[in-house]
């Protein structure tokens, strides 16, 4: 049962995200609006991350793991959020921020490449979701060590030797510091941007579809950000359902926002 859930949830999410990505990119090719391109890139990264989760429930492949961590865990939110930034700030600033994001993404890819030879492949199992086995977790005092867990001794930030449950990534791998950095930026731009847009339309009492659509986009993004935060705390079992719900809700929000209102010129993508 566990096996089927960790295989099928990410697979369904992949299909949803691919349809979502194609829908947004079609809009970009019709309108040439750069926000659609960045959303499309970010959503494609989301789809790659979900596909990697499904694949890693069947077999090991280090490049699939690389794709899962880079696109799924680090970059997705920031690149989708970059699309929202294109709607919110002046051209001069958004171009500068885009270069910073690109350089940061390349630096993250480089850091992850450096970490790849250090992966602890002995602990990998297709029976456990990748979100539950990627990190080496310190066992806090008083906590029980899970049965069948492979443990090691590590030095924590306080300089103490502690027992840890072994994971694929080494304890305190520098690449792990990049995930909050990119995800803070992604949450701020994607969720903040959607909430701000919804608020503006609500205040002007116009475009109710954009109020509701933006709120759904914000809610979907909050859902995935919450699932990622809970995963970071060591409860990775909620990530896959969070991703699927987030994908469906954000797609619904995008469709509602893009729907032309009566009296409004129809969108070129529709």
């Amino acid at each position, binding site marked *: 049962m566990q096996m089927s859930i960790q295989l099928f949830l990410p697979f369904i999410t992949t299909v949803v995200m691919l349809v979502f990505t194609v829908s947004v990119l079609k809009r970009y090719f019709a309108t040439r609006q750069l926000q659609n391109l960045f959303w499309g890139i970010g959503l494609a990264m989301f789809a790659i991350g979900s596909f990697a989760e499904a694949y890693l429930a069947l077999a090991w492949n280090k490049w699939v793991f690389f794709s899962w961590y880079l696109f799924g865990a680090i970059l997705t939110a920031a690149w989708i959020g970059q699309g929202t930034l294109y709607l919110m700030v002046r051209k001069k600033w958004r171009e500068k921020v885009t270069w910073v994001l690109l350089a940061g993404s390349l630096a993250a890819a480089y850091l992850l490449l450096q970490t790849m030879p250090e992966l602890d492949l002995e602990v990998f199992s297709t029976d456990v979701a990748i979100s539950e086995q990627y990190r080496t977790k310190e066992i806090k005092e008083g906590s029980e060590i899970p049965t069948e867990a492979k443990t090691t001794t590590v030095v924590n930030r306080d300089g103490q030797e502690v027992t840890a449950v072994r994971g694929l990534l080494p304890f305190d791998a520098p690449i792990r510091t990049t995930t909050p950095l990119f995800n803070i930026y992604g949450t701020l731009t994607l969720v903040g941007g959607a909430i701000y847009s*919804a608020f503006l339309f609500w205040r002007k*009492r116009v475009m109710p579809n954009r109020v509701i659509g933006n*709120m759904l986009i914000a809610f979907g993004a*909050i859902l995935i950000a919450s699932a990622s935060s809970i995963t970071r*705390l060591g409860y990775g079992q909620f990530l896959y359902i969070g991703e699927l719900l987030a994908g469906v809700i954000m797609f619904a929000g995008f469709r509602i926002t893009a729907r032309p209102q*009566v009296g*409004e010129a129809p969108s070129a993508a529709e």
Partner: protein
Amino acid sequence: MTAKEKRSQQGQLRQKSHMPEKSLFFEKVIPVLLAAMTILTVLLISFGVAILLGLINI
């Protein structure tokens, strides 16, 4: 199209691109949800910042 029909059509268009008046959903529920989502977003960002600063050690 008569002037009366034209006015009626314009009224309908305006109604659909504007929020319905005296709607409990748009007047009360939406602002509460917006405020709740803003608070959640601030909490999520604070969590990320706390990890970055090493205040939460995980």
